[in-house]
C-alpha cells in the first residue's frame, strides 16, 4: 500500500523518541558513570574519572562472585523444572474437553498476580507458624516440625527456585500449548498406526517437534530470571549469610544503601554483559539446531 516515506516515519517517531529518552540515553549514561568514582556519601570528592578501577575492584569483590554464582544457580536450576511442569500443564490443557477454558484461565493466574504479592504469599507459606503445610501435617496428626526453609543456607535457594517455578510455569505452559496446537497431525497419526506407545510418541515425536518453542522459552526465561528482584528483596534480602545474594539485589544495595553510584553502574554494565553473552550463546544454539 502506498504511503509517503515521511508518513510511515511519522508514525514511529514518537516511539523512537521515548525509547531514546528512557532507554538508549540512560544506557550510555550508565556506561559513563561506571568509569567514575561518584559516591553520594563522599560528595566532597566529586566525580572523578577512574578508568577501569571499578571493574578491577569488582573482580576482587567476593560478594560479586557469590552474586554471579547464585544468579546462575537460580537461573539454570529453575529452567528444567519449569520446562517439565510447563510441558505437563500444556499436555493436560491441549484437549477439547468441557471446562478446559476455565482451567486455562486458572493456570494463568500466578502470572497475573504481581511477583511482589506472590513473594508475600510464599513467605507466609514458608513460615511454619502460619503455613498451610503445618495445618495439613496437623490434620493428619503427623508429628513433624516444618523446617524454616528460608533460614538455612542449604535450602534457601531451592525454596526460592520453587517460588520462581510457581511464577514462571504459566508462561512456559502457554508457549508450549501454542506450540502443540500448531503441530501438524500427520506424524502423530503415522505413529499411532505404527503402534507407538504414548511415552514413545511424547519423547520421540512431540518433544523434538517442540524444540524451537523450547529454545525460545529458555532464552526468555534466562533473561527474566537474571532480572528478577522482587522475590529476593521481599523474601530473603540476600540472606542467610549471602546465600541468596543475586546480581539485581547486589546492584540495588550498591546504589541505594551504600550510595556508590560509580560502582553500582559498573555492576549494571557487567550484568548487561553477562545477559548479552548468554543470549548470544543461546541464539547460536538455536541456529545450530535449525540447521541440524
Amino acid at each position, binding site marked *: 500500500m502506498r504511503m509517503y516515506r515521511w508518513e510511515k516515519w511519522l508514525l514511529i517517531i514518537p516511539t523512537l523518541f521515548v*525509547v531514546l529518552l528512557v*532507554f538508549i540515553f*540512560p544506557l550510555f549514561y*550508565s556506561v559513563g558513570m561506571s568509569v567514575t568514582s561518584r559516591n553520594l556519601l563522599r560528595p566532597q570528592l566529586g566525580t572523578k574519572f577512574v578508568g577501569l578501577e571499578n571493574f578491577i575492584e569488582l573482580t576482587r569483590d567476593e560478594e560479586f562472585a557469590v552474586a554471579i554464582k547464585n544468579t546462575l544457580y537460580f537461573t539454570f536450576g529453575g529452567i528444567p523444572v519449569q520446562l517439565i511442569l510447563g510441558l505437563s500443564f500444556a499436555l493436560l490443557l491441549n484437549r477439547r474437553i468441557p471446562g478446559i477454558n476455565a482451567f486455562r484461565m486458572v493456570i*494463568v*493466574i500466578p502470572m497475573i498476580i504481581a511477583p511482589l504479592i506472590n513473594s508475600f504469599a510464599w513467605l507466609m507459606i514458608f513460615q511454619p507458624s502460619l503455613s*498451610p503445610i503445618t495445618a495439613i501435617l496437623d490434620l493428619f496428626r503427623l508429628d513433624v516440625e516444618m523446617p524454616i526453609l528460608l533460614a538455612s543456607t542449604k535450602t534457601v535457594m531451592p525454596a526460592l527456585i520453587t517460588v520462581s517455578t510457581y511464577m514462571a510455569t504459566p508462561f512456559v505452559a502457554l508457549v508450549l500449548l501454542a506450540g502443540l496446537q500448531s503441530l501438524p497431525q500427520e506424524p502423530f497419526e503415522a505413529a499411532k498406526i505404527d503402534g507407538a506407545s504414548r511415552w514413545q510418541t511424547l519423547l520421540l515425536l512431540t518433544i523434538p517437534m517442540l524444540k524451537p518453542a523450547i529454545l525460545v522459552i529458555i532464552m526468555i526465561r534466562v533473561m527474566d530470571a537474571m*532480572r528478577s*528482584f522482587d522475590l529476593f*528483596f521481599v523474601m530473603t534480602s540476600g540472606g542467610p549469610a549471602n546465600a541468596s545474594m543475586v546480581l539485581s539485589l547486589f546492584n540495588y544495595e550498591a546504589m541505594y544503601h551504600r550510595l556508590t553510584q560509580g560502582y553500582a553502574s559498573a555492576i549494571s554494565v557487567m550484568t548487561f554483559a553477562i545477559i548479552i553473552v548468554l543470549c548470544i550463546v543461546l541464539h547460536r544454539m538455536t541456529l545450530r539446531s535449525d540447521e541440524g
Partner: protein
Amino acid sequence: MRRYYRRHLGSAGIYILLLLAACWSLGPILFVAMSSFRSASEQFTTSTSLLPAELSLDSYRHVLTTEAIPKGFLNSIVITTSATLLALLIGSPAGYSLSRHRTGGIAMSYMILVSRMIPPIALSIPLFVIGQRLDLVDTHVFMIVIYTFMNLALVTWMMKTFFDELPVELEEAARVDGCTTGQLLRKIVVPLAAPGMGASAVLSFVFTWNEFGLALALTRSDAVTLPVAISGFVTIFRWEWGWMAAASMLMVIPAIVFTFIAQKYIVQGLTFGAFK
C-alpha cells in the same frame, strides 16, 4: 463396553490432574485471601487451621485507614492509567508502521524488543541520577514517562502481530477510493485495530500495576505506588500477616478482573507475540 469405561476413566484421570494443577496455581493466593479474612484475635493464636474461624473484615478496615495504602492505590491508578493510554497512543501507530512498511527494518524491531529485557534495577540507576538533576525523582510525571516506555515494547509488538493478521486489501480499496492517509487511519485502521488495542491496554495495565523494582528505586513519598506502599507497610509490620494479606488482595483483584476481560488475547500478549 470395556472401551467405554476406559475412555471415561481416562477423562476422569485428566480432570483429577487438572484439578491438581489448579490447586497448585490457585493455592497460594487462596491462602492469602483466607488469611486476609481472619479476625485480629485469631491472628495471634498459635494453632493453625486452614480456614478462618469467622469471616472478619478487621484487616481490610485497618489497611484502608492507614495513610500509605489508599494513597498508593490512588497513585497507582493515576500512573498506571496514564502510562497505559500514552503507550497505546504512541505505540499503536508504531506497530502499524512496523507491520505494513517494516519501517527501520529488523533493527528497529530488535531495539524495541531488547528494551524490555533490561533489568529494572540497572535501568533505575541512570534514571535516578538524571531524575535527581532535573528534580523529577518522586514525581508522577517521571513515573508515567518511564512506565510509558516500559509498555511501549509490549504495545508495539502486540499491535504489530495484530496488524500482520489484518488483510491489507481493505486499506488498498480505501486508497483507490481516494482516502487521504489521515482519513484512512481514522476511518479504516483504528476501528479494525480496536480489539487489539483493547487487549494491549489491558496487559499494559496489569504489568504496570504490578511493577515494583523501578517504583521502589524512583519514588519516596509523593508518587509512591501501591506495590511500594505495601512493601513499606510490610517492613514496618513484619509480623502482621493479616494486614499484609488484606493489602495484597487490594492489589491482586484489579489485575485479575482486568485480565479476565481480555482473556481471548491473553496468550499472545503474555508470551510477547512469540506465538500467536
